[in-house]
C-alpha cells in the first residue's frame, strides 16, 4: 500500500517537474550588496556623511573599527548565504572567527575607559547615544531583509542558527553605516553605541526569524 503511494508520489512529482534555475550564492551576494550600499547611500544622502569623511579622511581608530565590523558583517553574510544551499559536512562557521575578532572592540574599550587614553569628559559630553544604536539596527534592515528573503527561498537546515547569523550580518551592516554618519572617534562610544547593534540584531534575529525560515 505504502509502496504504491510512494510510486504515485514519484509519478506525480515527475509529471509536474519544470526546469529550475539553480540558486547561486553570488546572486544572493548581489542582493546583500544592494541592501548594504543602498541603505547606506540613502542615509548618507538624507543625513550627510560625518564631517571628516566628506573631506576624504577618517581617524585611524574609527577606520579600524569600521573595517573590523565590516569584515564581521561580510563573513556573517557569506555564511548566511551558504546556509541556503544545504549539504551534510559543509562548514558554515566562517563568521565565527570574524565575530570573535570583533571582541577586540569591547576589550580595547575597557582598557581605554579605565585607562588614561580616554578623556573622562568624552562619554559625559556625548551622553546616552541610543539614537546611534537605533540607527544602526534600522540601517541593517536592508541586509537583514536581503538575507532573509534569500534563505526563505532556499533551504536552511538550521533556522535557529540562520536567525543568529542574519542578525549578526544585519547588525554589522548597520553599524558600518552609522560609522559613516556619526562623527565620534571615541572607542567607548563606537563600541557601546555602534558595535552593539551586532549583538542586539543577533538576538532579534534569533528570536524573530527561525519560525519564518522553517520549511
Amino acid at each position, binding site marked *: 500500500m505504502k509502496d504504491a*503511494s510512494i510510486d504515485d508520489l514519484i*509519478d506525480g512529482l515527475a*509529471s509536474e517537474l519544470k526546469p529550475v534555475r539553480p*540558486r547561486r550564492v553570488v546572486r544572493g551576494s548581489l542582493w546583500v550588496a544592494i541592501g548594504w550600499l543602498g541603505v547606506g547611500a540613502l542615509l548618507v544622502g538624507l543625513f550627510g556623511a560625518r564631517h571628516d569623511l566628506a573631506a576624504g579622511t577618517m581617524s585611524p581608530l574609527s577606520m579600524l573599527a569600521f573595517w573590523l565590523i565590516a569584515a564581521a558583517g561580510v563573513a556573517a553574510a557569506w555564511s548566511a548565504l551558504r546556509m541556503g*544551499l*544545504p549539504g551534510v559536512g559543509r562548514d558554515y562557521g566562517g563568521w565565527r572567527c570574524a565575530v570573535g575578532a570583533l571582541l577586540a572592540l569591547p576589550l580595547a574599550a575597557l582598557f581605554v575607559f579605565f585607562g588614561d587614553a580616554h578623556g573622562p569628559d568624552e562619554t559625559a559630553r556625548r551622553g546616552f547615544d541610543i539614537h546611534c544604536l537605533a540607527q544602526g539596527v534600522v540601517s541593517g534592515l536592508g541586509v537583514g531583509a536581503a538575507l532573509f528573503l534569500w534563505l526563505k527561498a532556499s533551504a536552511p537546515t538550521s533556522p535557529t542558527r540562520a536567525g543568529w547569523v542574519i542578525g549578526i550580518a544585519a547588525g554589522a551592516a548597520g553599524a558600518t553605516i552609522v560609522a559613516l554618519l556619526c562623527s565620534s572617534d571615541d572607542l567607548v562610544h563606537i563600541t557601546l553605541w555602534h558595535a552593539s547593534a551586532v549583538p542586539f540584531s543577533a538576538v532579534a534575529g534569533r528570536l524573530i526569524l527561525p519560525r519564518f525560515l522553517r*520549511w
Partner: protein
Amino acid sequence: MSIDEPSLARLMAASQRGDRAAYRALLGDSRKWLTRYFARRIAPHHIDDLVQETLVSMHRKLATWDSSRAFLPWLAAIARYRWIDMLRRQRDEAELGDNDAAVGAEDEAVHAKLSIDHLLTLLPPGQAQAITLVKIEGASIAEASQISGQSESLVKVNVHRGLKKLAELIESE
C-alpha cells in the same frame, strides 16, 4: 543496482533542466537511499512517511543543489532536516529505530556523520543511557529505572532532555 554519486549528480543536473525521465529515475534512486538512511534512525513504521516527506521537500528545493557539489550530502541534509522536524513533532514519543540495514561503502561517510551511535556519545551518559534503554531497546520506564539505577522520574527527564539535545546535535553536525 548500486546508487553511485556521479550518476545521481548527472540525473540531478538533468532534472534541474527539466528532464522528467531523469527526474523519475533520480526520485526512485533517492527513495532507495532514503529508506536505508532512515532505517538506521527511526522506527520502521515511520520510514515511508519520512521518505515521502523528504521526496516532497527535495522537489520543492530542487534549485538549492549546487552542481559543483556532490548530490548525496545535499540529499542527506534535507533528510536530516525532515528527521529533526519529526523529532521535534514527536519529542516525547519519538521512536528511534535501530535497524542495521546494510549500507553501501560509498554512503558510509555521510551516514557515519549522523549515526545515532555517534550522536549518543555526545550526550551526558545518563541521558544517553535513558534514550538507549527506552527509545531504542524498547524498555519501559520502570525497567529502564531498574537497569540504570536512575529513579523513574529521572529517566523521564533524561529522555526528554536527551531528545531535545539530540535534535540540537543533529542540526549542528
